[in-house]
């Protein structure tokens, strides 16, 4: 192996002997190396993405669960006009008896996710965080909330619990 001269001028004056026929092979090897590194990275990244992917709760019909983690009996509405619990998809839910009708709404304010409270005196839902107000139909009437509360169909299940079903808009 010949020594490369340290003096740059001396190096420039020497004739350049480069094997140009090796260039396509070199390009191919560089490309192949890139592919191998990319595939290797993907084999690490894909499981990581799956590992971090959010947990989705089940959808569809559900029953209202109380703060004690047990289903709330439908007859509870006979003594209590407002029942709070966890409903469809684990969403905090308010079941309200209003004008003889039982209505259920997601308690999650559509502004920034605080939980609304039923104000029986004014027949409206009020968000304690930013003062959003929804009427008895869950429609946003004042404050920052951009859309109505999510509404559920309410029914008594065969086991006598408060059943909820998402109402598709």
């Amino acid at each position, binding site marked *: 192996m010949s020594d490369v001269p340290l003096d740059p001028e001396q190096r420039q004056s020497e004739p350049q002997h480069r094997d140009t026929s090796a260039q396509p092979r070199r390009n191919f090897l560089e490309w192949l190396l890139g592919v191998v590194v990319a595939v290797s990275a993907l084999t690490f990244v894909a499981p990581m993405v799956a590992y971090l992917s959010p947990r989705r709760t089940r959808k569809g019909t559900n029953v209202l669960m109380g703060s004690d983690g047990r289903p709330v009996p439908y007859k509870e509405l006979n003594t209590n006009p407002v029942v709070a619990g966890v409903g469809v998809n684990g969403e905090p839910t308010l079941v309200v008896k209003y004008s003889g009708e039982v209505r259920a709404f997601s308690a999650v304010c559509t*502004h920034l996710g605080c939980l609304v409270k039923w104000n029986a005196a004014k027949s409206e839902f009020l968000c304690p965080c930013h003062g959003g107000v929804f009427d008895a139909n869950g429609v946003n009437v004042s404050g920052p909330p951009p859309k109505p509360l999510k509404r559920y169909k309410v029914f008594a299940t065969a086991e006598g619990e408060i059943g909820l079903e998402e109402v598709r808009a």
Partner: protein
Amino acid sequence: MPIIRPVLNWIDERLRIHAIIRATLTEYMVPANLTLWHTLGFVLVTCFVIQVVTGMLLLVYYVPDTGRAFDTVKFITNKVPYGWLIRDLHAMTSHVFVLAIFLHMASTLWMRAYRTPRELQWITGMILLGLVLAAGLSGYLLPWSQLSYWATTVATNAAGSIPRIGHTLVLWIRGTPNVSQYTLGRFFAMHVSIIPFSILAVIGMHLLFLRLTGIAVPGGEDKATVRKVPFFPHMVTKELASVFGTLILVNLLIFYFPQVNFPEDALIPANPLETPAHIKPHWYFLANYQFLKIVPNEFLGIILQVIVGVVLFFLPFLDRGKKSSRLYDGVFYTVVTLAILGYIGLMVWGYYS
């Protein structure tokens, strides 16, 4: 001890520690007109060290489980010897950390020290600001109190207003539709590993860029003609004075103003079925919170804040050139003054609203 000198010499021959000390302390020349105000960078490093040390100690007893987190924090505070001090130091230093980085960035902005060749210092500074705020947000949830639960709910929900991807983004941040055990796990991992290691790496880059470009000379004096002094002892004594000043501030907060970090809702365990009235974020998010309240459209409120962030991030590429006209300078300083006053005004408004 006769053995120590040969051992030190043996180590020095291999690691050249004396040469490094000379290059970074006694032979490192800095402008003589640097004041205490220019020691904020060292204050930030001190805050980071305090956070790491106290954070490691808190990890000994803290359990990131929704059923136990609040009780373990209570246990640290009430039962572990000096646990209250370690916890308070960690919590209060986080406030001083944010305050110092705000002042450091505002000072750089006012001096326009982000201009060529210090663009990368500004950008790493902006990344550090984001990381420190993220550390504050993620650490807020860990005690699993009413305050932490609902402040995190509101803060993470803000991302939901982005059209199309907002809902998915919130889901990925929280791990579940609502703030839950999965959210606590994610925030805990970010708070104790991802964010601190990132901060350490970015501080390293920031200091490297600082050494490569040199410290900006205050008052616009010429770098070549300004009088210079060795970093040690001149600047080191100033840095130490700032560090002790910082420690005094932290201790004043711990002993005289504990309610800064522990309002009533911070003393009640999280209840996902009951939102407390008038929940508010920490002071350093109050301006963003109030801005979201006063802008009628939530998406617009977030987009405007993102635009401000992007403009600040790329400021070195927007405010170019060493010399500018008096009119340009006048407009620049008017805008910066109004922006800083507006930010403080929103913060105060958010506090009293």
